[in-house]
């Protein structure tokens, strides 16, 4: 039997150190983690896993971790991954927080990939995939994670 999950609690910054510059000076991906009341979740931690620019998953590249500030905002500097296995370019994202007894798993897709997104096997299986596509902002991309509520992010199981 597998070992059950428990919450990271409020003190995880002691043991889980940030590692959010995958590509120093690279593509800026940021966003806020929000609760069901629309309030920021400052004690959340966001992890990403992605392919490199050529669409290769490499053991030595592609993982990142960012805590959130008082505004619930995480930050990464990375590159846009290439397409993998006929899927549109995407990041896998996991969020842990106090009050989450197990993490949530989602995917972030890119707004400049309309055609590939329309063909993507995961996105095209959803009634509403809009919560999974990042927004272009002046200095990069913005991707909010809404844990609960009207615009709740689509979360996945594996």
């Amino acid at each position, binding site marked *: *039997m*597998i*070992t*059950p*999950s*428990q*919450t*990271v*609690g*409020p*003190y*995880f*910054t*002691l*043991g*889980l150190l940030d590692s959010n510059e995958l590509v120093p000076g690279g593509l800026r991906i940021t966003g806020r983690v929000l*609760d*069901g009341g629309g309030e920021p*979740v400052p*004690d959340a931690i966001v*992890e990403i*896993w992605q*392919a490199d620019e050529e669409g290769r*998953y490499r*053991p*030595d590249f*592609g*993982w990142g971790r960012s805590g959130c500030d008082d505004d619930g905002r995480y930050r990464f500097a990375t590159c846009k991954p290439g397409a*993998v*296995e006929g*899927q549109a370019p995407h990041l*896998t994202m*996991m969020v*842990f*927080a*106090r*009050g*989450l*007894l*197990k*993490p*949530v*798993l989602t*995917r972030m897709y890119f707004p400049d990939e309309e055609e590939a997104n329309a*063909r*993507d*096997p*995961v996105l*095209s*299986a*959803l009634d509403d995939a809009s919560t999974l596509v990042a927004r272009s902002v002046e200095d990069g991309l913005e991707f909010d994670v809404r*844990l*609960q509520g009207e615009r*709740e*992010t*689509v*979360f*996945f*199981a*594996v």
Partner: protein
Amino acid sequence: MSKAAATLELVRDGDGPHPPYLYPDYRSTELRAPKRPQLLLPHTLSELTGPIYGHDSVAELDHDLTRQHEGEPLGERIIVTGRVTDSAGRPVRSGLIEIWQANGAGRYRHDVDRHPAPIDPNFTGAGRCLTDDDGNYRFVTVKPGAYPWRNHPNAWRPAHIHLSLFGRAFTNRLVTQMYFPGDPLFEFDPIFQSVRDPKARERLICDFDLETTVPEWALAYRFDIVLGGPAETPLEP
């Protein structure tokens, strides 16, 4: 491929050994628990791959929380060992384990912790290590104390160590808490009780391990961990 995945299976929250997202006795879940059913992802390379840590990513003494400062921390010195396997029973090799915990008095070295118990200048409460080729790990630390929290009147957390683990794939990630045998606080703790299956709950409690005990130096506890998620090995891309 897109046709095969055109309908993704829905997964109901609370099925399986993990706790549900919404567990009202743990008040912080109320506004943070997702309410919609989840979709089962196909297992593509995105789900089957993950970072691999080299031995240079962990320093020699990172696994020993009693040797990070000038003096030794106060409290009961303990050795925690165990084996990490995947759901198919295979060892997880070179898996990164990160731990954090309160000191022997039940106080975290963290700004948010206001419990009026002493901070130990010789204890940070964080460590890391990699599993060996057979999935084994080992930490040396002090037994953490129980501490109060504000979930409900007179709420106390049973003594526990937080563990974060990586498996072969990113989707094998696990963050959990290890508890100690026979703790009288178990029945009052909504975080422990959020795991509804009593057998699954038992998996969160370590075993006293006389064999690993070092005479006249430290007691030992054993905590084996089985990671969920995909257990298959990805094909070469």
